[in-house]
């Protein structure tokens, strides 16, 4: 009989007998239904706790930082005068020493970015183009592990390696490259008494630290280059170098841009590496740290830290143009 099964199963009631079971008219279900109807209320309740936190703790701090940079420190009482002024910024940009610091940090950031791109490329390219899936996973883990290894441990390791009688010099000695090392250390500006106290050493450490951050986005971008494009290029008569320049490089650019955002901003803001490994010259990060510490000059520290924010914002805008955000 057609309808028998149906009525036995309770077919046909307009509203489910929701009174039975754990649902029913329990308060939890009533809240559920209310939130289902009022989806904006639901959204609001969801966002309130995290936004409260991020808003007050993070944004609030950033705001105080900005405010502090517009205050100035009274030279005599060494306290912060809560009056809006441009005096601190003036101090920042008028003092040649300060400008030196900014330029020095900027130069290092650019140099590190370029070096990272150069070193990362063979690795990323191998991973994307030649590695079997197994090898690729191996490389992926191999790049990821150092990336997540403790930052301080890595810095410490390099300090040992670059120390005067450390591994680096042993290495150079064994390979007979003593002369090269000494010549490098004798170079003005970037050289120094040992690798551990020279810009050259600092440079090496920076490159090492941020290398994985460049490899991963670059690899992602290179992986997206279809094999048949390279074959088509060869088929049309291009030599490997031309294919690289005209096909691979433009397509890898978003990946390079994405990676460079990391290397640039991380170098710009770092204060530990320049303190631990490197020449006496100050970097932005070190200034910020020092000014807030012994000098207690928070306004100046704040002003100094606004510089990387602005520089990074500019760099992000440029990188976005180059397609970095599509590659992330």
């Amino acid at each position, binding site marked *: 009989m057609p309808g028998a099964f149906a009525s036995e199963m309770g077919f046909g009631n307009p509203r489910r007998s929701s009174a039975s079971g*754990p*649902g029913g008219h329990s308060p939890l279900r009533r809240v*559920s*239904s209310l939130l289902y109807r009022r989806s904006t209320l639901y*959204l609001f309740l*969801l*966002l309130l*706790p*995290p*936004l409260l*936190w*991020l*808003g007050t*703790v*993070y*944004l609030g*701090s*950033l705001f105080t930082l900005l405010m502090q940079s517009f205050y100035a420190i009274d030279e005599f009482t060494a306290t912060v005068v809560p009056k809006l002024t441009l005096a601190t910024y003036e101090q920042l940009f008028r003092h040649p020493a300060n400008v030196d610091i900014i330029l020095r940090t900027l130069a290092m950031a650019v140099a590190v970015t370029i070096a990272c791109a150069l070193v*990362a490329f*063979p*690795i990323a390219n191998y991973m994307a*183009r030649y*590695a*079997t*899936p197994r090898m690729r996973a191996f490389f992926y*883990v*191999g*790049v*990821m*592990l150092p990336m*997540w*290894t*403790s*930052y*301080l*441990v*890595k810095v*410490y*390791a*390099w300090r*040992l390696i670059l120390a005067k*009688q*450390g*591994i680096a010099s042993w290495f150079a000695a064994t390979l007979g490259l003593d002369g090269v090392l000494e010549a490098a250390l004798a170079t003005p500006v970037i050289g120094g008494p040992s690798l551990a106290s020279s810009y050259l050493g600092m440079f090496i450490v920076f490159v090492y630290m941020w*290398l994985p951050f460049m490899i991963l986005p670059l690899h992602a971008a290179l992986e997206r280059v*279809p*094999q048949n494009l390279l074959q088509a290029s060869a088929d049309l008569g291009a030599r490997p170098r031309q294919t690289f320049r005209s096909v691979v490089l433009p397509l890898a650019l978003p990946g390079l841009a994405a990676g460079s955002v990391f290397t640039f*901003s991380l170098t710009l*803001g*770092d204060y*530990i590496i320049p303190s631990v490994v490197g020449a006496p010259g100050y970097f932005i*990060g070190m200034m*910020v*740290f020092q000014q*807030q510490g012994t000098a207690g000059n928070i306004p100046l*520290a*704040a002003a100094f*830290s606004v510089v990387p*924010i602005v520089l*990074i914002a500019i760099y992000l805008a440029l990188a976005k143009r180059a397609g970095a955000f599509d590659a992330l």
Partner: protein
Amino acid sequence: MPSERAPLGQKLAAFAGLAFLHFPVLIIVLYAFTTEDRTYQFPPPGLTLRWFEAAFARDDIWTALGLSLQVAAVATLIALFLGTLAAFALVRSGFRGKEAITLLFVLPIALPGIVTGIALLSAIRTAGLGAGFWTIVMGHATFCIVIVHNNVIARLRRLPASWIEASMDLGADGWQTFRHVLLPQIATALLAGGMLAFALSFDEIIVTLFTAGHERTLPIWFFNELFRPRERPITNVVAVVVVAVTLVPIMLAYHLTRPKEQKD
């Protein structure tokens, strides 16, 4: 992508690069066993375990370790709660202010640590708070929230909307749907996000130096050792311990979140 045979030069360069990435940490591990404690002779003259013994006897190391673990645990819990709420909110499409809020969730990672550090410090000073355990947690939780949020929202995005609709269609309200359908699906993402957050918090130094006041987490202990090295091999031992402690959650998180297609 199909792979061709790599030219030998490129293959060597790739492997050399990989080795370059790993050898510093391996050196440290090696040095934790060296018998020589004054200089950094290479190769080390002998191997011993006594530095491990000495390190385990040091109270200051244990205190610092304990503080780091506590901070990491609390920060992770806060992050799991707030990050998940945020992920559920932000996975919904186009509501007013969504772009601005998304940007807010990128900033803690996008801006360098020093900015976060000095900002927090100036806020702490302005508000007249005392720097200590809770200010450390505040700093850590902020970027941990972002980590958890990223993990959970990535998983939520892969969930077909029809599953939620089907669950509601079959009689489950919002809460029941979350419990029976959503939670099992995001469980591994929550776990991975939590472990990453824990590892990052445990290892954090850049922001912590600004917000710790007189407290010493293990990274801060380590940082001090960099400038006033007393017993270098003990520092090496601590380094090995730190690497081991953070390595486990990282690898677990990786296993939990890599997409199934990559498994070979």
